[in-house]
């Protein structure tokens, strides 16, 4: 069954890359031509359909136009238009910044990323407008738009450096630095809950339990610790690599509506499966399935741990951890894929994406770590009760259904930061 699912996934992936240009062609929007660019202050507003911060910025820009007759606002919807998305990336390069979210507003050489409120982000935009009015600046977006016939550039660099520093509102609302609002707390909380739910499956830790049973039979304490730790670290690494690759794929393909919808459907499917498990599998305990696969892994683990050469044993355990976890991952990639999608919807610096993934993996591995350290310290095997598995299925199922619906219909509610 999983092979079939993997095949369907691959076909969808191929279709996605084939269909992507066609979808992109559908909604080509190119609202500004060189001749249409005003000589006053051009404000370029990059936004996304369904993005709540963008909706809040719009009325502010309307007022700005009334207050400054020289201001002309050009807007570019980037989630539905591949052309506008390309333009945004190009502008980001010109401005030497990594544009990861909308709204993104460019005024001359200055840019404002995100929207908080009129007092912070709004003020930064107005300062930038006044600066351009006072000193005149390059029109970076205008240059990109008419890059075939570049406009004459003003030689003097733009001043008002102080205002430029203020014009990065994302920094104002960073957790720990600025005011902490509920949204800043929501993402870590969601990370902990999803990681914990994903990891809480006592029946899935069979490889680790078998390995521990073999390790406890060893006399060499050092070898016991190193082999066990290597297995745990390699397992976490597989997960991290998968999530990082998926994150980068999502960031690379950009804000494509139907990728988000596809992942929303995956979430609904996963949620449905979990709820079905809750209602149909009322016994606690672990289902006995995959006898042959389990026996094969057992034999390999035995051979590896009994290797006299320590380095061969170490290498073997790492390879086996990769292989076993990769197979497990294909079967249970739902939650990490959904979590990664939520991460990309949030406006975060690159390093924070990875930090959140590490937090997720830590909570994912928490039960494994508990079992391993308890066994190594007490030299006795401990199990984690399976009676909470049903509750985990119920909570996980409900959460996945909610997230699936939000991803499809109200993604703005999943945009944190």
């Amino acid at each position, binding site marked *: 069954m999983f092979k079939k699912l993997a095949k369907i996934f691959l076909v969808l992936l191929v279709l996605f890359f084939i269909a992507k240009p066609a979808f992109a062609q559908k909604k080509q929007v190119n609202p500004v031509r060189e001749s249409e660019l005003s000589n006053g202050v051009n404000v370029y507003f990059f936004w996304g359909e369904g993005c709540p911060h963008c909706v809040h910025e719009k009325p502010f820009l309307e007022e700005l136009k009334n207050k400054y007759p020289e201001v002309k606002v050009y807007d570019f919807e980037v989630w539905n238009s591949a052309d506008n998305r390309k333009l945004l990336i190009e502008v980001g390069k010109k401005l030497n910044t990594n544009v990861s979210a909308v709204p993104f507003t460019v005024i001359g050489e200055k840019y404002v990323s995100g929207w908080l409120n009129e007092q912070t982000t709004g003020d930064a935009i107005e300062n930038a407008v006044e600066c351009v009015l006072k000193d005149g600046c390059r029109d970076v977006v205008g240059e990109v738009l008419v890059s075939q016939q570049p406009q004459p550039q003003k030689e003097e660099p733009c001043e008002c450096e102080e205002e430029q520093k203020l014009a990065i509102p994302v920094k104002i609302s960073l957790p720990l630095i600025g005011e902490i609002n509920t949204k800043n707390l929501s993402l870590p909380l969601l990370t902990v809950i999803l990681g914990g739910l994903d990891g809480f499956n*006592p*029946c899935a*830790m*069979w*490889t680790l*339990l*078998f390995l521990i*049973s073999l390790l406890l039979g060893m006399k060499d304490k050092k070898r016991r610790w190193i082999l066990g730790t290597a297995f745990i670290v390699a397992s976490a690494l597989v997960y991290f690599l998968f999530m990082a690759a998926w994150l980068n794929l999502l960031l690379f393909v950009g804000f494509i509506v139907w990728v988000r919808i596809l992942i929303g459907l995956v979430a609904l499917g996963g949620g449905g499966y979990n709820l079905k498990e809750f209602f149909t599998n009322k*016994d*606690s*305990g*672990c*289902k*006995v399935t995959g006898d042959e696969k*389990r*026996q094969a892994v*057992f034999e390999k683990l035995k051979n590896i741990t009994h290797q006299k050469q320590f380095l061969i044993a170490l290498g073997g355990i790492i390879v086996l951890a990769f292989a076993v976890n990769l197979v497990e991952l294909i079967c249970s990639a739902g939650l990490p894929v959904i979590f990664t999608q939520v991460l990309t919807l949030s406006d975060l610096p690159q390093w924070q994406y990875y930090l959140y993934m590490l937090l997720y993996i830590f909570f994912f591995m928490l039960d494994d770590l508990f*079992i391993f350290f308890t066994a190594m310290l007490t030299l006795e*095997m*401990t*199990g*984690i*009760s*399976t*009676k909470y598995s049903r509750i985990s299925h119920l909570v996980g199922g409900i959460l996945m259904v909610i997230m699936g619906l939000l991803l499809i219909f109200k993604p703005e509610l999943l945009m944190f930061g």
Partner: protein
Amino acid sequence: MKVLKFGAVWCSGCLVMKPRWQEIGKEHPWLKTEYYDYDKDKEMVNKYNIDKNLPTFVFLDKDGEEFLRLHGEPSKDKLVKIVLENKDK
């Protein structure tokens, strides 16, 4: 009566049940129990048709006839109650 306990080294719930049965054994030394590993004792596993969830506990009367089967992690109280109620079976 006798209890057959089916478990496996990879089964987390079986590890949880191990000390629970040990306590019951200490408190009721007359109780006979036998443990079978799902992967090693295939003959018994097939005989009692263990193919659902682990751990599985099969309760036999003095004639060797099965009168109850439990899966998962029953509480100690529940097990003790069953054991005492069926002591003479």
